């Protein structure tokens, strides 16, 4: 008897081959059969008529490290069809880490992830110091598969203590880092992450940024013993430096026979040559035999701001920044002063912000009235009998300035340019940042957006091509054993979805972080069922509570 029989779906197996009608049987965590009208009984039958049956999606760039300790499903990633994630990016992981160094690392994590302090003090118990211990702690609670990177910054902290954030390492320290990295890889780390841009909560460079090339080279030599991945964040705001990093990665890849990956790569109409130049250099290095995978996200980038601090969003309006730079009390007083308001409003044009601000969306903030969230400023202004600029000011002042606004799709938003890049065989779809920046914007639903925008709307990718991009290609790039393809004998990570409706839901604020902390999420749309290692983990809006997730085995 099968555990699960998925009947009547269109099997898109992740290879890129055309989909075909077939049933999929699952037993003992593995795919037990694929074929038309499979015979045999099953404990659970999933009707998939009109649906696609595909390998579970793999997200190669996340920061779910902390969340996984109280939420083994990495919600809401799982319900979007993601069955495997890679945390530990950007030089930061939760292990190896001595107890005395936790405070320093928490600051760095909070800077990137924006998790509330309670996430580190109330939501879980620190039971580990080494990577194997962290793995053990994770494995108790997983509903999703995890391929964790080990962070270069924490390796430095372990070996050098506070000096990790002050200086280059001595040869003996580099040797100690090599030993430590080897232990982490033996304990299941999928690779090493490092960063050339990230900062801690005090705007100090994270420890990895103090490493000289010899240190990175030595660590890559250890990666080479295992054939594991080096992930980096280059100086992505400067294309020339990014290209230099690509060259550096290529040398490391060739010398140590390792895969490397970097992110993010963004496209902008303001800097239209940047992404093409970056990808051209990648192509040159692949032609030499190097493996330097650029990660590109599917979703556009939004600008998020409130009047609690100055935002460059207001740099177009002459009077605004001066007011927004005032200390909070004086700022609120100024924003309550009729003459100042008139001046600010006048700056936004004769229509008082209808064009310049009416499209803004009230996205949340701790004090945002529920009746305003998700609506445009223009709509709310009409309802209040005001103009958008006046409503932005008045609504903010009425709630202590803690109202967050969103200017949607202000970067990486030109589908006609980004689509062909995503379809490029050398571009690795990823960089979702899932679990990071949680109080600024939602990092979930990029896979749904891939299908809705680039398969259905733009037609730049076929259904099969899109599935391949986020399943078998990802598994192959990262060396994930037995995942990413629907084939008999492989791990039964499966997503059943409606190809006509799969998408990302609207962004919405929720207060489900420890300490009732705020984050923004997107619900899945068009995903019916998600199977992880042969157990239904999510179906039709409900998490099953299964604990079938695992640390990914590696090739």
């Amino acid at each position, binding site marked *: 008897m099968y555990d699960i029989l998925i009947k009547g779906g269109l099997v898109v197996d992740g290879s890129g081959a055309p989909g075909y009608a077939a049933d999929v049987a699952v037993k003992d965590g593995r795919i037990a059969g694929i074929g038309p009208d499979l015979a045999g009984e099953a404990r659970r039958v999933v009707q998939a008529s009109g649906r696609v049956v595909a390998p579970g999606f793999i997200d190669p760039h996340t920061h779910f490290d902390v969340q996984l300790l109280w939420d083994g499903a990495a919600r809401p990633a799982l319900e979007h069809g993601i069955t495997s994630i890679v945390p530990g990016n950007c030089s930061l992981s939760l292990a190896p880490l001595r107890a005395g160094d936790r405070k320093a690392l928490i600051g760095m994590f909070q800077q990137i992830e924006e998790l509330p302090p309670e996430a580190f003090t109330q939501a879980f118990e620190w039971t580990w110091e080494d990577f194997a211990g962290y793995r053990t702690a994770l494995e108790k609670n997983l509903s999703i598969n995890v391929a964790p990177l080990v962070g270069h910054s924490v390796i430095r902290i372990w070996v050098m203590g506070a000096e990790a954030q002050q200086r280059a390492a001595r040869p003996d320290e580099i040797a100690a880092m090599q030993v430590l990295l080897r232990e982490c890889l033996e304990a299941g780390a999928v690779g090493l992450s490092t960063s050339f841009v990230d900062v801690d909560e005090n705007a*100090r460079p994270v420890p990895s940024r103090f490493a000289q090339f010899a240190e990175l080279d030595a660590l890559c030599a250890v990666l080479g013993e295992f054939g594991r991945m080096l992930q980096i964040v280059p100086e992505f*705001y400067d294309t020339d430096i990014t290209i230099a990093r690509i060259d550096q990665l290529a040398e490391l890849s060739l010398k140590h026979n390792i895969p490397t990956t970097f992110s993010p790569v963004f496209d902008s109409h303001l800097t239209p040559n940047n992404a093409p130049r970056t990808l051209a250099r990648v192509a040159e290095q692949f032609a030499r035999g190097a493996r330097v995978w650029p990660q590109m996200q599917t979703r556009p980038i*939004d600008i998020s701001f409130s009047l609690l601090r100055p935002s*460059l969003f207001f740099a177009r309006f002459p009077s605004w920044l001066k007011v927004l730079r005032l200390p909070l009390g004086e700022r609120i007083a100024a924003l309550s002063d009729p003459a100042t308001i008139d001046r600010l409003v006048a700056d936004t044009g004769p229509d008082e912000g209808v064009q310049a601000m009416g499209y803004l969306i009230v996205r949340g903030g701790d004090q945002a009235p529920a009746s305003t969230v998700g609506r445009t400023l223009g709509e709310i202004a009409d309802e209040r009998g005001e103009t958008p600029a006046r409503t932005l000011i008045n609504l903010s002042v009425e709630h202590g300035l803690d109202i967050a606004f969103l*200017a949607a799709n202000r970067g*990486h938003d030109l589908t006609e340019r980004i689509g062909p890049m995503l379809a490029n065989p050398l571009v690795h779809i990823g960089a979702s940042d899932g679990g990071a920046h949680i109080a600024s914007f939602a990092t979930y639903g990029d896979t749904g957006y891939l299908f809705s925008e680039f398969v259905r709307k733009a037609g730049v990718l076929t259904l099969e091509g899109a599935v391949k991009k986020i399943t078998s290609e990802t598994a192959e790039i990262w060396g994930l054993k037995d995942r990413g393809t629907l084939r008999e004998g492989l791990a039964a990570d499966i997503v059943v979805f409606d190809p006509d409706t799969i998408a990302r839901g609207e962004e919405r604020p929720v207060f489900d972080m420890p300490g009732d902390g705020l984050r923004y999420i997107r619900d899945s749309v068009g995903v019916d069922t998600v199977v992880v290692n042969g157990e239904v983990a999510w179906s039709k809006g409900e998490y099953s509570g299964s604990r079938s997730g695992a640390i990914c085995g590696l090739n």
Partner: protein
Amino acid sequence: MSALGPAIAAETLAADAVIVGAEIAAGHDGSAELVLQIQYENGVVAPVVLDQDTGLELMRACGAASLPGLIGRSWREIFARTPLKEH
């Protein structure tokens, strides 16, 4: 990252590179970024992308109330007196 050293006379370089465009774009962390178009002495125009904090500091340093106030300014002069933070 450090600014140009004081040994470089801003006046000497003022004509070398000029801001000819300034726009706001979305940064990867959800904040706004300042995208400047700089025209260099050889005529080449190329972008420089500054994160929000650096962009705000630059505008403050050169006394620009808004984006149009940046146009025509000497890039090197502004750069020399803007205390850029570590990224």
